[in-house]
């Protein structure tokens, strides 16, 4: 052990520096949720390109632009965005930390029991992604039998694997790998640990453009994305639906789909 310890002055300046960091960091962190005023806070889960992601520290994406355009058509004003993990969004909404969820959330019965949804704003199907240079090119879900496949936890891709493959007995439970996020699933696909990944079609297209993977086929689920709102917030839901209709009727909606899905 050396004996050239910190001098008292050095020690104090270290402690002081830490204290400054703490007080600065205290300025981060979110504002409040809805309190009946016309200011609303939106919530999303970045990491779902091109719907929502962080680029250079900024939150961007189709959902972000679309919700902002929709809210502009209403009497409400958007105070800001809060970011959560996908699975925290519904608790954050019901707890009034946020007033609306814009996170590529599929409208389904299970979620509909806890929260309400606006009218659908986007339709998606599930894509089955495989390695570009691999010899495995399935053309239907039944071709996945006996193959290791992956999806992201808590997504409709996972539900598809569960209900269409595992429950009918076409795939062993042990052949299904569940990942914390899409990127890690695709990484494992590239590494050869799994043979296919089931994910939303627009997200799959983003990956196909960036990596040596390709969409083997799409499975029609006819699912719709909607903005999530609290069940008692009927007036606000109506306003969002009217705003959405206006945005769809004009050119804004087309402009945004071209901007975010066009260049693939």
């Amino acid at each position, binding site marked *: 052990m050396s004996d050239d310890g910190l001098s008292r002055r050095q020690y104090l300046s270290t402690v002081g520096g830490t*204290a400054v960091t703490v007080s600065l960091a*205290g300025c981060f962190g979110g504002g409040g949720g809805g309190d009946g005023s016309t200011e609303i806070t939106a919530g999303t889960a970045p990491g779902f390109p091109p719907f929502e*992601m*962080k680029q250079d520290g900024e939150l961007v994406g189709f959902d972000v632009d679309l919700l902002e355009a929709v809210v502009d058509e209403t009497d409400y004003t958007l105070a800001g965005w809060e*970011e959560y*993990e996908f699975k925290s969004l519904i608790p954050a909404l019901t707890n009034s930390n946020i007033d609306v969820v814009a996170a590529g959330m599929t409208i389904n019965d299970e979620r509909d029991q806890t929260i309400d949804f606006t009218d659908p704003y986007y339709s998606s199907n599930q894509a089955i992604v495989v390695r570009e240079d691999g010899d495995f090119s399935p053309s239907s879900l039944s071709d996945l039998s006996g193959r290791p496949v992956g999806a992201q936890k808590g997504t409709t891709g996972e539900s598809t694997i569960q209900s269409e493959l595992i429950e009918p007995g076409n795939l062993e439970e042990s052949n299904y790998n569940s990942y914390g996020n899409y*990127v890690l699933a695709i990484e494992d696909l590239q590494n050869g640990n799994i043979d296919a990944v089931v994910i939303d079609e627009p997200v799959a297209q983003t*990956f196909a453009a960036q990596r040596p993977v390709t969409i083997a086929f799409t499975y029609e689920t006819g699912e719709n994305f909607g903005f999530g709102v609290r069940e008692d917030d009927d007036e606000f839901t109506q306003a969002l639906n009217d705003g959405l209709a206006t945005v769809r009727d004009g050119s804004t909606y087309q402009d945004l789909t071209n901007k975010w899905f066009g260049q693939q």
Partner: protein
Amino acid sequence: MPLLPLQSDWAFVVGNLDLLLAGTGVTIGLTAASILLGFLLGFPAGAVEVYGSGPLKRAVETAGVVLRGTPLLVIIILLFFGLSVSSSAFVTATVALGLRSAAYQSQIFRGALQSVDEGQLEAARAVGMGRLQAIRSVVVPQALRRSVPGFQNEFTIVLKDTSIAIVIGLGELLTVGQNLYQGGQSTAALEIFLTVSLIYFVLTFVTNRSLDRLDDRFSIPGGERA
């Protein structure tokens, strides 16, 4: 599209270093605030467990058992979405990590206090000190020195557990890293993980060495190390 060469992934990490460092700042702030809160609650709690009695001692022990037995993820979600202690994710995360750390630190200090020979207390009383004064002036200074190694462990645990704040949307180091590869260059996942790990390692290493120095400086002269 051609496979991006590996260098471009490292270039992407370097290009976004400012964001990662901003996340590091949040991580450091959260760690420091949580450790401090944990110390302010945990040290008295440890002392109560050693010297206290009656309902207060039982209450402190029960709170400790509950906090140590509950996963941090559950504590943080309960505090944010259940009890809503604060609308600020930073404050909520600090309370959650601080309470859990207090429960751990109370045991570090309990062990350290108990390790001081009983004769010390008797001797202090014999020269006319009151019980409280004897504990404060004779036992506590010795116990604090002995708690440094356990405290180093606790610091390391809290530092890395700050990443759990991702569930309530706090932009700390791991959150920033994850957002980078999920929103920008998705091939850079491994490079970002390695960079984030390196930053955690540096933070841990620097603090542990500083605490080592502190330990050396304040160690009991002519003590066990002689």
